[in-house]
Every structure is written in C-alpha cells, then in structure tokens.
C-alpha cells in the first residue's frame, strides 16, 4: 500500500481518522481515573494494614470445620488413676467409650489419632508420640515435659507444654499433669439423632427395624413419631427450626413480590405515558415508584421490624414496599413500549376504557409482566436471606448468629447448603415458567410478523 493510497483512505473516512481528542483518549482517561480511584480506595480502607493484620491461617481451619467435627478427650495424670474425660455435651453422648482410646494391659493408655500411624501412648511418667514415621518420647518426671532426642518440626516445645500438630487429623498437647488430644472426624456428628435420643448410636438397620416392628421405646408414642420428633428437635442441628426459618425466607420473597405485583399492576396503567388520563398523575406515580425503590429495602426492613416486631411479616412488608417501586417502574415501562394498533382497533368498536385495556393492551403485556415478576421473585429469594439478618425473619438471622460465635461452622454450612438448594429450585421453577412464557411471546411475535 503506497502513501497516496493511505491518505486517500484517510480522506474518505475522516470520521474515523480525525476524531475529537476526548473521543480518542477516553479509554486512557477512564483507565487513569480508575487507577487513581483504586489508590484512593486503598488508602481509604487502609487496605495494606488490614491485610497485614488479618489471620489467613484461620481460613483453612474454618473451612475444614464446615465438613468435620472434633472430639477432645482429656486425661488427668495427677489423679490416682488415669481416666479419659470428655467435655460435656460432646458428640459421643453420656457414656463415651470410643474404640480409638485403648487401655493397654500394662496400665498405659493409647489414643489412636489416625490409625497406628499417628498416635500417642502415655502413662504418668512418660508419653510417646508417633506421627509421620517418627517416634518422639517425652519424659514427664522432671516437673515439665522434656523431649528426649531430636525434636521434629511438627512438634513445638513450650515452657510447660509440648504440642504435636498432626495436620487435619488432630493434635496432642502434653503437660506434666494432663494429656489433651484433639481428634478430627470427617462429616457431621449426630446429624440425625442427638445424644439424648433413644435411637442415638444405633446403626441404621436397627433403627429401621425398631421403627417398623420394635417395642415402643416411650410408652404411648409410636416409634415412628418418636424418631420423627427426635430428628425435628435435634438439639445440635435444630432441623425443625432451620427448616421453618427457611420456609419463612421463601414465604417472604413470595408474598412480598406477589403483593408488590398486585399493587403495582393498576398503578402502572396510570403511570404509563400513553395510557394515563393525566400527565400530572403519571409524573406523580413515577416519582412515587422512584421513592419506593430509593428508600432502600434495609430501611423498610428496619422500620417494619420496629412496627410489627421481628419476623417474616416485617420482611414480607419490606419486600412488598420495595417491589411496588421496582415492579411499578418496569410494568409502566413495558406499557409504554406496546404497539398501539390493537388498542385503536378495540377503541374503534366503541368499547369503554376498561375493555380497551383488557382486550387492546393486556394480551400484549401480561407475558412481560409475569416474566418480570418471576425475575424479581427469584432475586428476592436471595435478597430475603440478607435482610433476615437485621431481624426481618427467615434464615438470615440464624445464619448470622451461628457465624458470630466462630465455632459452629458445620451448622452454617448446613444452612448454606439448604439455602443454595432453595435458590437453585426456585431459579429453575422461575426459569421454566419464563421459558414457557417466552415461547408464547415468541409465537405471538411470529404470528404478528406473518400477518405483516
């Protein structure tokens, strides 16, 4: 390509080669502005300091607690006889006798933390920790624990305590007067029956045979009812409460969106520019919709929590009020985008105002209305989880409280899984309905196109 040809092309398309400066440089300006803003945000949130002071080592620990639980037997060495003690309300129930705590014939105890590969054997004078193919003997006679021999890097020797960390499997803490073991198990402890239940600790086959044909464990109650009651009232997992709260979340989203739709529907006709009898009314209604949307769902939730007390009524009302604004706005925009010809046709037959809307406007907008309402329903099901945390009912508050203690991550994960399941189910219902609708919409458009 010669220089002449180049300049000829340039002359033919001046709008491409000679654009105004601001148009040529706006990407650069945008990027520069973003970088400047990020620098400011870094300073504003004092991010370097926050990250320096954060405890990232807790993350794998918390995540492992989502899907596992631990048991922490303690062995007092200063008593006449060594006996294992378990914390109250441990997952093992009132008479713990696990097979991984072994009383040897010679009077020593062995706790198998991960089979024989990771274990600790001890009596009152010495303890032997085995892990990673290494055996570490600890003498307890000198007033403080002393490791005899080389100390591997997974053992930490403090002044009065020796700690052996065995990764996910657990850890052993040895002092002169006690040995403390933490053994970690994969899974959720006592998920079906808690330790108070008469079915606790029984294998599944036995429970089923008890329910089907066993003698009544509690006179006057059938075993099936007893088992169901025990599961529903499981003290640790609170299945009953969790499922009720979950239902509340679903109800809040459903009720709020539906009521919002019912109120927004007639108002939208008065707000739509092409249908409203008065321009002033249209403006007033549109500002009203903006107002309902802009007063945040949080504000509504806090107000209604104060008015009605905490619970799903407050949450439903908050979603209802926000949804009047959102749906009113989208409905009236859909109405403003309709094709006017069917309406004129119905009008020309002498039909009155309501009949014109019913036969000239509704058939065109109802699928759009329903589709938008379903979309809001879907997004409110997610949103209802969060506003629950301020007291507006549902699973949110329960989740928040379970997290605040930092010790109940398995319960948190259980509720998260249920929430994900609910969101997934309602996403699919709403997607299915909307696909059905879009098919009718599509058919409608095709018929219109064929008619010309």
């Amino acid at each position, binding site marked *: 390509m010669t220089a002449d040809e180049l300049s000829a092309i340039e002359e033919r398309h001046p709008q491409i080669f000679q654009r105004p400066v601001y148009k040529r440089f706006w990407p650069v300006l945008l990027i520069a502005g*973003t970088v400047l*803003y*990020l620098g400011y*945000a870094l300073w*504003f*949130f004092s*991010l370097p300091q*926050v990250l320096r*002071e*954060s*405890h*990232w080592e807790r*993350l794998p620990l*918390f995540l492992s607690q989502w899907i596992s639980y631990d048991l922490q037997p303690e062995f007092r060495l200063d008593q006449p006889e060594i006996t294992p003690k378990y914390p109250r309300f441990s997952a093992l129930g009132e008479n713990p006798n696990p097979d991984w705590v072994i009383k040897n014939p010679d009077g020593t105890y062995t706790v198998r933390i991960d089979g024989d590969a990771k274990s600790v054997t001890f009596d009152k004078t010495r303890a032997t920790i085995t892990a990673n193919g290494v055996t570490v003997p600890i003498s307890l006679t000198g007033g403080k624990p002393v490791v005899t021999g080389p100390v591997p890097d997974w053992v930490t020797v403090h002044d009065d305590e020796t700690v052996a960390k065995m990764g996910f499997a657990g850890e052993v803490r040895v002092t002169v007067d006690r040995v403390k073991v933490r053994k970690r198990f994969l899974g959720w402890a006592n998920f079906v029956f808690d330790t108070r239940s008469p079915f606790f600790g029984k294998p599944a086959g036995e429970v089923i045979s008890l329910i089907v044909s066993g003698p009544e464990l509690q006179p006057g109650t059938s075993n099936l009812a007893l088992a169901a009651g025990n599961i529903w009232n499981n003290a640790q997992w609170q299945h009953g409460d969790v499922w*009720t709260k979950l*239902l*509340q979340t679903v*109800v809040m989203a*459903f*009720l709020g969106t*539906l009521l919002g739709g019912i109120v927004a529907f007639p108002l939208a006709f008065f707000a739509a520019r092409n249908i409203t009898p008065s321009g002033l009314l249209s403006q007033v209604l549109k500002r009203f919709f*903006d107002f309902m*949307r*802009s*007063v*945040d*769902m*949080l*504000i509504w939730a*806090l*107000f209604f929590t*104060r*008015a*009605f*007390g*905490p*619970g*799903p*009524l*407050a949450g439903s009302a908050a979603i209802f009020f926000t949804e009047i604004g959102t749906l009113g706005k*989208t409905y009236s*925009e859909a109405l403003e985008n309709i094709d006017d010809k069917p309406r004129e046709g119905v009008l020309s037959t002498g039909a009155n105002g309501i009949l014109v809307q019913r036969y000239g406007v509704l058939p065109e907008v109802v699928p*759009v209305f329903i*589709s938008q309402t379903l979309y809001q329903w879907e997004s409110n099901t*997610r949103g209802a*989880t*969060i506003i629950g*945390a*301020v007291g507006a*009912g549902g699973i*949110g508050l329960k*989740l*928040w409280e379970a*997290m605040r203690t*930092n010790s109940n991550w398995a319960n*948190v994960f259980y509720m*998260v899984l249920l*929430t*994900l399941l609910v969101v*997934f189910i309602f996403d699919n219902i709403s997607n299915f309905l909307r696909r059905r609708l879009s098919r009718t919409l599509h058919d409608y458009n095709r018929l219109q196109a064929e008619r010309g």
Partner: protein
Amino acid sequence: MTSATLHSDATRRQADAWRRQTSLRRFYTALGVGLLLVAMGATMWFADEANAGHFFDRLPHILDFLSWLVPKDWNDVWRALFDIASPSDKGTQEFNFPLGRVYVWGGFYIPEYFELMLTTVNVALVSTFIGFVFAVPFSFIAARNLTPNPVLRLVVKRFMELLRAFPEIVIAGLFAAIVSIGPVAAIIAIGLHSIGALGKLFYEINENIDMRPEEGLRAVGANWFERVRFADLPQVLPNFMSYTLLRIEINVRISTIMGAVGGGGIGEELKLSISRGFGAKTLALVLLLFVTIFLVDQFSAWLRRKLVGEQAFLMSA
C-alpha cells in the same frame, strides 16, 4: 354476537369451537388465579403466625411507632446531617451531633454521616470493580462461541453460579473472622457475588455477538487473545459497561444492608439509630441514604442511556 346473526352451520360450528376453546382457557386461568390466592392466603397466615407481633394487633399502633420519628425541632434533622451543635443537646447520645465530626484540615470537617455514606458507596464501587475485572475474562471462557473446550466452559460456569447463589452474608461472616469485622469483609463478600452475577450476564452477551469480525481475524491468523480483543470486546463493551453500572446501583443497596450486619458504613448507624428511637438522627440518615441512592440510580440511568440507548431500560438487573 348473538346466535340470531349466525346464518350457516359452518359459522355455528366455528363459534362453538371457539367457545369451547375459550371456556377451557378461562377455566385454566381461573384455576391458576385461585391457586395463587390460596397460596397467598396461606403464606400470609404463616408469616403472621411466625411474627413476633401480629398484623391486626399492631396495625392501630403503626402511627404511634411513627410518632417518635417526628423530632421536636425539625432543624435538628439538618443539624444531625451536618454535625452542627443542637440546643436540644442534654449530653445524651440522641443529640450529640458535633461529636461525630471527622476533621480533615484544621477546622474543616466532614460530617459523620457523609463519611459513613462515603464508606458505603466506596464499598459498592470497589466490589463492583472486583466483579468487573474477574467477570470479563471468565465471561470469555464461559461463552460457547469463543471457547470450544466444553469442560473448561462448564467449570467456569458452575463456579460463577456458585458465587452468585452463595449467600453474601456467609462470605462476609467468614471474612469478618479473618480480616476483622468491617468494610473490607463486606468488599470481599459483595465482590465475589458480583463476579458471579456480572459473569453470567456478560457471557450471555458474548454468546450473542456477530461472529463475522471474529472469522475475519481468524482468517488472517490472529490468536485467541487477539480475536477476543479486536472482534469481541468492541462489540460487547458498551453492554458490559451498562450492566456494570446497573450492578453499582444494586451493590450500593447491598452494601447498606451489609453495613447493618457489621460491614461498616451507614447501615450500621441507621440500625442503631432506629433501634434506639433517635428521631432526628434517623430522619437525617434516611434522607441522606435516599438522596444518595436516588442520585446513583439517576446518574447510572443517564450514563447507560448514553452508552446503549433505550434498550438499557428493558429488562435487566
């Protein structure tokens, strides 16, 4: 149309068929509406039963509840907003407006609530930025027409779905335990959610592009990055920007709510002020929040209209 006007058998048959069809459809419509009404009644009853206070018991007291909101002196609302000393100040927390001043330069200060509002807006902006930065590459990988590898596509899509559906409050709670409670945990939570939400919208846009520029680039031997950069990106960027702006609107709202559960910012203050019944402070906060959200919405709508025209107002979010 009465039967007297029907002359031939054919017309009558047609009319009968039409009547049968509409009556069936009317039956289904009535059934649907009936079911919906039953569901509505049942859920209303359930919500009312489960609530601490019941609807009809509390209804007469709604206005009592509003009475604390009306301040004795309306000027206190402005004073609360701008941290100006109030004559009602009796040393209680309700009227200690000047205490919250954030001094920047000598006697020049930012009123407390503006500072908190700024925190909330900044949380929304930074988390939207995080969402955008990660969602763009993910959306190219997840789009059927740009990434031929189905496994890679599926993995990225599922990952984004998980991020979208995961309750933000749990991510916030988890990170509150790691980076300390406050706005940074909220940024991480909202940012992760935004990656999923924006990623889904973005890859759907990517799948609807015109593939001819891409084929042209392929013909001259451009690699994947060059094709995405010069064929795809120019087509989708306006829509990406439009959705990102919409996300900012949503994130401002979420970040307010996050504030109320410990994420810092104006939500926390609002929750405290309402639960303690501080009328003037509550009104000032509501006013500020309302105006900010309104302005953010209007600005974003204006910018979106400039970017992609009227279609920005069709269904989105």
